[in-house]
C-alpha cells in the first residue's frame, strides 16, 4: 500500500468517526434545560429560556457567584434584571463558554465576573477538552445513555425551563466562624495562571465587541480572598481599564457577620450574606450605571411571577 493510500485511509477513517460523533451528539444532547432532561448545571443553563434580550446584567463565576448574588433580590429592590451563569468550580474556559451561551439570546449591558474563577487552576488539555465537548456534545453528555428516550433520537432541543432564582442557589444553612481581619494589607501579588489570564483577555474582548461593560467583583469569602489576590486582580483590572469592586474590603457597605452570614465557615455566603451583597451591588449598579427599573414594565411580567415563586420558596424555607 502506498504512503498516499495509507494517509487517505486515515483521513477517511477520521472523517467517518467525526460524522458518527456529530450524529451521536444530536442524540445525546439534552432536549431541554430542566434537571430531568440531563443538562449539566441546569440552574446556569436556565439563561437559555429567558425571554430574548431581557437580561441587563450577566454574572459569571464559580460557586461564590451563585451563593452570593441573588438576581431576584436585585429585581425586587431596583427592578434590575440579571442572571447568574455561575457554576460549581467554574474554570475560566467554562466562564467564557457560558458568556457566549448567554449572548446567544441576550444582550446584557454589564457583565460581572466574580473573581474567584480567575484562580481556579486548569491545564491546556482541560480547556481543549472543553472546546471539543462544545463541538462534539457526545463527550459532555455521554452519560445520558442511561436515560435516553425515543424522543432523543428525533427531537430538537427546545429550552423551556424558567429558573425562578435566575441562577442563584438559595441556602440558609448557618455554619459561622469568628469575625477576624482576613484582608491584611500587603504589596505582594498572588498571580493567576497565564491560561486564566488568556481566557480573561478573550472575555474582555468579547464584551467589548458586544458592547457590554465588564466589571470585576470579589464576593466576600474568608477562605478564598486575600490581599495578594486583590493586588493581582487590581493590576489586571487596571491593565484592561475595567472596574474592580472588592466587597471583601468594604465592611461598612457590605457588613458581613461571619458568625451568621456563611454556610460553610467562611467559604461561601448563605442567604443572609447574599442579601447583604446583593443589596449593595443592586444599589451601586442602579445609581452608577445606566440601568432601567423594569418592575412596572409589562414586558417583564414574567419576572414578577418569578419573584412570587421566589418569595414562596423563602416562606417554605422559613417554616
Amino acid at each position, binding site marked *: 500500500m502506498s504512503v498516499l493510500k495509507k494517509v487517505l485511509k486515515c483521513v477517511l477513517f477520521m472523517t*467517518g468517526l467525526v460524522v*458518527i460523533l456529530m450524529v451521536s451528539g444530536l442524540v445525546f444532547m439534552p432536549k431541554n434545560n430542566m434537571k430531568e432532561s440531563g443538562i449539566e448545571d441546569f440552574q446556569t443553563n436556565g439563561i437559555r429560556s429567558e425571554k430574548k434580550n431581557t437580561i441587563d446584567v450577566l454574572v459569571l463565576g464559580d460557586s461564590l457567584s451563585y451563593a452570593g448574588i441573588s438576581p431576584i433580590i436585585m429585581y425586587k429592590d431596583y427592578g434590575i434584571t440579571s442572571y447568574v451563569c455561575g457554576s460549581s468550580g467554574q474554570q475560566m474556559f467554562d466562564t467564557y463558554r457560558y458568556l457566549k451561551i448567554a449572548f446567544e439570546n441576550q444582550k446584557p449591558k454589564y457583565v460581572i465576573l466574580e473573581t474567584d474563577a480567575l484562580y481556579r487552576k486548569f491545564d491546556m*488539555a*482541560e480547556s*481543549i477538552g472543553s472546546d471539543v465537548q462544545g463541538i462534539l456534545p*457526545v463527550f459532555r453528555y455521554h452519560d445520558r445513555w*442511561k436515560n435516553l428516550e425515543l424522543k432523543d433520537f428525533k427531537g430538537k432541543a427546545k429550552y423551556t425551563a424558567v429558573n425562578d432564582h435566575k441562577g442563584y442557589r438559595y441556602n440558609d444553612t448557618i455554619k459561622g466562624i469568628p469575625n477576624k481581619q482576613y484582608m491584611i494589607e500587603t504589596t505582594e501579588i498572588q498571580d493567576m495562571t497565564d491560561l486564566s489570564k488568556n481566557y480573561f483577555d478573550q472575555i474582555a474582548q468579547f464584551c467589548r465587541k458586544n458592547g457590554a461593560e465588564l466589571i470585576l467583583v470579589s464576593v466576600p469569602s474568608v477562605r478564598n480572598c486575600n490581599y495578594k489576590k486583590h493586588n493581582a486582580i487590581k493590576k489586571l483590572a487596571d491593565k484592561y481599564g475595567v472596574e474592580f469592586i472588592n466587597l471583601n474590603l468594604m465592611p461598612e457597605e457590605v457588613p458581613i457577620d461571619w458568625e451568621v452570614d456563611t454556610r460553610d465557615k467562611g467559604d461561601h455566603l448563605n442567604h443572609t450574606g447574599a442579601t447583604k451583597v446583593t443589596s449593595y451591588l443592586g444599589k451601586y449598579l442602579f445609581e452608577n450605571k445606566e440601568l432601567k427599573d423594569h418592575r412596572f414594565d409589562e414586558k417583564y411580567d414574567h419576572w414578577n411571577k418569578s419573584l412570587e415563586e421566589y418569595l414562596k420558596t423563602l416562606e417554605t424555607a422559613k417554616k
Partner: protein
Amino acid sequence: MTSFFSVFYLAIFLPVMVILYNVCPKKYRPIVLIAGSYFYFYSISGKLLIYLLFSTMSIHHIGLWLTDIQGERDGVLKEAAKEEKKAIKAEYLKKQRRVLFFGVMLHLGILLVVKYTPFFATNINTLFDAMGINITLTIPKIMMPIGISFYTLSAISYIFDVYRETIKADKNIARLALFMSFFPHIMEGPICRYSDTAHNLYKGERTNYQCLTFGLQRILFAMVKKMVVADRLNDFIQEVFTNYSQYDGGVILVGAVCYTIQLYMEFSGTMDIVIGTAQIFNVRLPENFKQPFFSRTISDFWSRWHITLGTFFKDYIFYPLTMSKPLKKLTTKARKRLGNHLGPMLAGAIALFCVWLSNGLWHGAGWQYIFFGMYHFALILTGNIVEPYSRNLLKKLHINKEGLPYGIFSMLRTTCLVIVGELFFRAEGIKAGFAMFKNMVFNFSITSVKNGQIFALGMDKHDFLIVAISVIIIFVVSLLKENNINVRGEIAKRNIFIRWAIYYAIIMFIIIFGAYGRGYTPVDPIYANF
C-alpha cells in the same frame, strides 16, 4: 500528566512524541525518547528525577566495575597454571560478589528508605508503646519518585545479569538511561530485562503502518478495560471498603469480586496501553498478563499475572536461594528423612517464603500486603504438598484431571482464592480485612441486592449492567487468546467495512460508556503506588 489515560498523554504528549521520533534521523531517535521520558518523569515527580539519574549512573558504573574484574580474572586465568585456576576463580568471584552486594544494597537501600521508613517507624513506635518504653520516633514524610519499585528491580536485574555474565556491561550510558526511563514502562512496568529491551529500544526503528495500527488498537482495548470497567467500579469499591461495617456479607462479596475485576482491568489495561505505546515506537515489551483467570492453580495464576515480577523473583531470589549451599545440604538431609516428595520441598518452602515475603512487601509498606504474600505462600505450599495425594484421589474417583468439567472447577476455585486474597489486599488494614472476611462468610445475605440498597452505593443498575457486558466481552477475547487465536490478526484479515465497523463500535463504546467527566473519579494508577 497523571496517567496514561489522561487527555494530555493521549491527545498531546504521545502524538507529539510519535511525530518527533519519526521526523528525527535514526541516530537521534533514542535521544528523543530519553528526552521525552525524562520530561514525562519530571512532569509527575519533579525534582525526584534525581533518583532515576542516580540509579542509571550507578548501574552504569557498577556494570563496568564488574566487567573490569571479570576482564582482569580472564587475563590472570590465561597466565595461570591449571591447579591455580580454581582458587583464582574463587578469589575473583568473591570480589565480584562484593561489588554485586554493594550495587544491590545501594538500590534496595534507597527503596527501603524511601518506601518503608514510615512503616518501620510506625511499627517500632507501636512496639515501644506496648513495651511501655517512652520513646516515639518521628514518622518522616518522604516523597517517593514514581515507578521506583519498578525501575529499581530493572536496575538490580541488570547488575545481577552482568555479574552472572549473561550480558555484557553497557558502556553507552544513553542506552542504559533509555532502558531505565522509557516512558511507557516507567510508571507501572513491565519490569524489563536489559537483554530483552535495551538494544531493541536504542535501535530507533521507524514507526510503520502495521505497528502503528496494532499499537493503537491495543490502546483502544486498554481504554475499554480502564475507562469503562475499572473507573466505573471505583466509587462503589471506595464506598464498600471504606464503610464496610455498614454492609452485609453479600455487599462485601460483590465488593471483593468488583475489586478483583477492577485491579485486573486497571493493571492489565495499563499494560495494554504501555505495550501498545511501545509498539507504536516499533519496540516490543514483555507481556505481563496471560489470561490469569484461566489458571487452574495459584502457582499457575502467578505465572500469568504480573509475569515480569514473578520471573524477577524466580530468577533473582528463588533459584539463587535453592541453589545455595546451605539449602542444598538441607535438601539432601531432608530427602533422607522425609522422602523424595516432602524432602526437597523443605528447602523450596524456605525459598518460597522469601519470595512471597518480598512479593508482599514489594506491593506496599503495610501488614495487609505481608499477609497477602503469606496467604499466597500458604496456598502454593499447600498445593505442592497435597498435589500427589489429590492426584491419587482423583484417580480413585475416576475424575479426569485434564477434562473440561474439572478444568472449569479448578479455574473457579483458583478465582475464588484470588478474590479472597484481593479482599485483604484492598482492605484498609489487616483488621479491616479480617472484619470484612468475617462479615462476608458469617453475615452473608442478599437482602441488599433484593431491596436495591446495593444500587445506591455509587453504581446503579445500569452501571452494573455495562460492567457485566464489558467483562463478558473481555472474557470472550481472553478465551480466544487462550485458544491461541490472535484477535487483532483475525480482525485485520476481514474486509475494510467489517474492520472499520469494529473499530468505530469500540471507539463509540468507550466514548459512551466510559466513566469520565463530571461525577466520576477515575481510579488512580493502582500499581504506580506500589
